[in-house]
């Protein structure tokens, strides 16, 4: 699927890319996207998107792990209530260890699923045109929609090394 129509500028410096994002936003471009080889904080701040909410998936996942841990230890002990070492059938202190490990395991795996889904969604070719240098040494700034000539002008003024139309 081709990328959405827009104007793509390529930058060598994160500060220049951040300035371009801010300038595009000031010029009325509401949909500005970036691809970069590292999470440069100034670019992320300029984009101004809210913090990812994958915690809404990860924390319930950890909670599910906690419940699975409790179910596994307490449930299986009650299923065969054999007293060993004179200890109660449901012995909380040793069970806490297993419950903790299961919580971390399922929480981590849920976190993995959440980031994989988010990454797949945000990495579709339609979201950003494929360009190998944006994983290596360049930062791509894409202005979607709006007036393409104005976007080209803004990107050039901010020091883009290459500017071109996509989609």
């Amino acid at each position, binding site marked *: 699927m081709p990328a959405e129509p827009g104007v793509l500028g390529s930058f060598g*410096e*994160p500060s220049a890319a951040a300035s371009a994002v801010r300038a595009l936003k000031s010029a009325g471009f509401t949909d500005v*996207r*970036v*691809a*970069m*080889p*590292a*999470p*440069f*904080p100034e*670019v*992320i701040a300029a*984009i101004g*998107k809210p*913090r*990812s909410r*994958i*915690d809404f998936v*990860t924390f319930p996942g*950890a909670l599910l792990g906690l419940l699975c841990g409790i179910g*596994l*230890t307490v449930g*299986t*002990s009650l*299923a*065969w209530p054999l007293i*060993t*070492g004179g*200890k109660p059938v449901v*012995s909380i202190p*040793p*069970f806490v*260890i*297993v419950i*903790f*490990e299961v919580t*971390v*395991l399922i*929480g*981590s*795996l849920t*976190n*993995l699923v*959440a*980031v*994989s889904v*988010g*990454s*797949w*969604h*945000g*990495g579709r070719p339609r*979201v*950003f045109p494929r360009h*190998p240098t*944006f*994983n*290596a*040494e360049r930062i791509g700034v894409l202005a979607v929609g709006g007036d393409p000539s104005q976007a080209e002008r803004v990107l050039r003024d901010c020091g883009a090394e290459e500017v071109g139309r996509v989609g």
Partner: protein
Amino acid sequence: MTLSFERLQATVQATHGRPGRGYWLLLASAAALAAFGGWAYSLIVRNGLYLTGLERPGNWGNLITDFVFWVGIAHSGTLISAILFLFRAKFRTAVYRVAEMMTVFAVMTAGLYPIFHLGRPWFAYWLFPYPNQRAIWPNFRSPLIWDVFAISTYFIVSTVFLLVGVAPDAAALRDRAAGWRKRLYTFLAFGWRGTDEQWRHYTRAYLFFAAFATPLVVSVHSVVSWDFAVSILPGWHSTLFPPYFVAGAILSGVAMVIVILVPLRRWLRLQEIITPLHLDMLCRLVMLTSLIVTYSYATEILTALGEPASDPERSTFVYRMTGNYAPLFWLMVACNCLGPSLLFSGKVRRNLRAVFVIALLVNVGMWLERFNIVVTSLAHDRNPFSWRVYTPSWVEWAMTFGSFGWFFFWFLVGIKILPPVSIAEMKEELAHEGHASGEVAHAG
């Protein structure tokens, strides 16, 4: 020369170049050592555990020592990647990938040894909870089951943490690779494109992975220490064990990172990325954890010596220091306490040969520490009638050395496939603060 994005990527990519004769020789040696250990183990499978030196009361020996040693080695990766990430310690960037790889391969090694130690290893799956017709479940009150959960969770979470960290770097390498490497990096990149939307989720998820891994790393060696501490055996039954084991694990793990990094940075020409400053900071971690370990040694010995002469705890510690295994005990003290104290000198920390030797000796000392804990306590229990000196058989030694072959085999394979340095994090560092230079004058 200042490191640029292009130069950084080219340097890391060059590490995956065609391996030389030395690499193949090392890989073949590691494989041969692992195969020898595997063959020695096959003798135990065919003939039984009588081929070991184990005999009552010494029912744990080299194999359990190897298990605890490798779990300890596995600790540095998560310490460096997760805990130092949460503490925003910048020096971790250049070294954490090697440490993470080391962690995964060390857990792969450690996990084998409890299975090797089973009389009937083909029933190892009994340790895992699975629905069965008889409704029999593992005994969750047993420390051995805690180990199963702790080690398997640690292995899975460490592997996930490593692979998630590799994804952006794999994308960078994918776009310039060809053939099977391109296919491999395409798989490892998980569709990574580096968009702001991807980074937004990734940075948050990475924080959560670090937050999960931090208590996990502390829990794992605490759980291993409880294998010993919840028993009533003198020398084992101690509330000091969890922090003592965790500190010891970090000491041995960081020392192993140094042992690997010193030759590796030269072999892979990574001197510009992994600088003496990074090794200096690792040396400081060794110094810190060595002090904690020394304090723990002193605490348990002085506590035991404060007891009356008839006390079994005192008897065990006096035996440990003066009995059959005394040379090993004092060698352990020299390697773990005296050796690292030399690192207080900035001059020693700047001498990479000296650092390598000290770190290597720490690894020897930490293996001996586990041997001292496991063996001397069992050899000198509460019942003088059953006292017996345990000597490992050649089969056990073959399996101990085989573990090093197994570990280094996977590490050598891994280093030629995965990027040994986090390219993305290094680029972020380069863009803002410049890379930590090789100058360590301020660090003295």
